[in-house]
């Protein structure tokens, strides 16, 4: 079946079997292996991607169900070579050890901050409660998201603009 969707801003179109799961479409058909494939049972959340801006577990979505939708994976977090504040936050606050859960954690964090730019720790823990990390005990993940909340990009519009993105990069690394 022919499907088309936007992935990280690019239009993609492929002919696939209806039974292909979105996680495998992203990893194996598109070659975007930043999205991890974990428990396969909707529990661990490492396969989380954003579908029209909302986190979804891509092991439990058929690729054909994403036809016509907008998908964002971890590869789409950095814009114009500038890390998303969430990515920077995970670096600054040691939000990962092995890194397996990190792509899903960061996308959920991005979606949370888009809706709620100043979450408290409880709201962050609630947002990531469907995702499992076996290294950090979550404390550093919460701190990473708080770091990102404290260091937002100027605006989306400014981030798209070359000059503004540069000044934002300075802010982020400052």
């Amino acid at each position, binding site marked *: 079946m022919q499907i088309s969707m936007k992935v990280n801003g690019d239009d993609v179109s492929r002919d696939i079997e209806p*039974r292909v799961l979105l996680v495998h479409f992203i990893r194996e058909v598109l070659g975007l292996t930043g999205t991890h494939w974990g428990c396969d049972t909707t529990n661990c959340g490492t396969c989380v991607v954003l579908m029209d801006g909302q986190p979804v577990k891509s092991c439990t979505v058929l690729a*054909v169900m994403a036809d016509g939708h907008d998908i964002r994976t971890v590869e789409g977090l950095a814009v114009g070579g500038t890390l998303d504040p969430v990515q920077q936050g995970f670096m600054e606050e040691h939000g990962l050890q092995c890194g397996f859960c990190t792509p899903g954690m960061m996308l959920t964090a991005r979606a949370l901050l888009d809706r709620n730019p100043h979450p408290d720790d409880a709201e962050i823990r609630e947002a990531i409660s*469907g995702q499992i990390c076996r290294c950090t005990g979550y404390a550093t993940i919460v701190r990473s998201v708080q770091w990102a909340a404290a260091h937002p990009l100027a605006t989306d519009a400014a981030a798209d603009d070359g000059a503004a993105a540069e000044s934002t990069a300075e802010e982020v690394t400052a």
Partner: protein
Amino acid sequence: MQIPAAFDYERASDVANALALLERHGPESRVIAGGHSLLPMMKLRLARPDWLIDINGLTELDFILREGDQLRVGALTRHTALLESADVAGLFPIIRDAERVIADPVVRNRGTIGGSLCQADPAEDLSTVCDVLRALTVIRGPAGQRTVPMADFHQGPYETAVAQNELLCEIRFPIRPRSGSAYEKVERRVGDWAVVAAGAAVALSADGTVDDAAIGLTAVGLDGTVPEAEAVLQGRQPHEDLFAEAGRIAAAACDPVADRRGPVDYKRHLVEELTRRVLRRACARAAGAGQG
């Protein structure tokens, strides 16, 4: 790697089209909405439909509308939308109580109320919620539309009144003055199925006595509500002793089985305690509620 067996897939454009597709593809076709129950079952070959009819494009079934003395909820309404609705929180706090403990926030972005009810898992939370709120389901099929009360909707584990060629379209919740409701679940970890959960809805008379009470239990082998426990509340002033008595009756009336979530004694204990708690909270909410 878990992959469903091969199937054909078609996307419905509206309710009439979905019904036509179900009719055309016959008994081996299944409707898919959020897919968070059906796809895991297909991966495990517990379900093996030849056709999937995708109804995610049926935006006409995605609504929460307060209309007169009822709240109308479209079957395709996602859990997240129910959790975030101010109307739902104000009118039926039990829905909010339950939605907070259904799976996890990411799953709630996809799962739907219609999917939950039609899956009819014995440990499913919204079935109990709809039971105690005495909701009506609106089902459409080739012969037109019919309304089925929740009491007749469930026909056993994983079986409902919705025939293979029909579609659950809407759930209607009657709005009652001086009413309150609550849900509480004990689970082993966040997002798990209930070990036991209880729900209650109460409407008070003008003098503060109980006009109507409904008590529902999740995952303890009961279909529908617990009329024996509800009866002791009828016409009485809400009181801690009354809640305790209803809890004892509910614990005796249920029929739990021992499994890895716990032995029978433990589950009965939970029923007794949770029934008491949800009645206490539902009555307090009803006492604080206005005319609806």
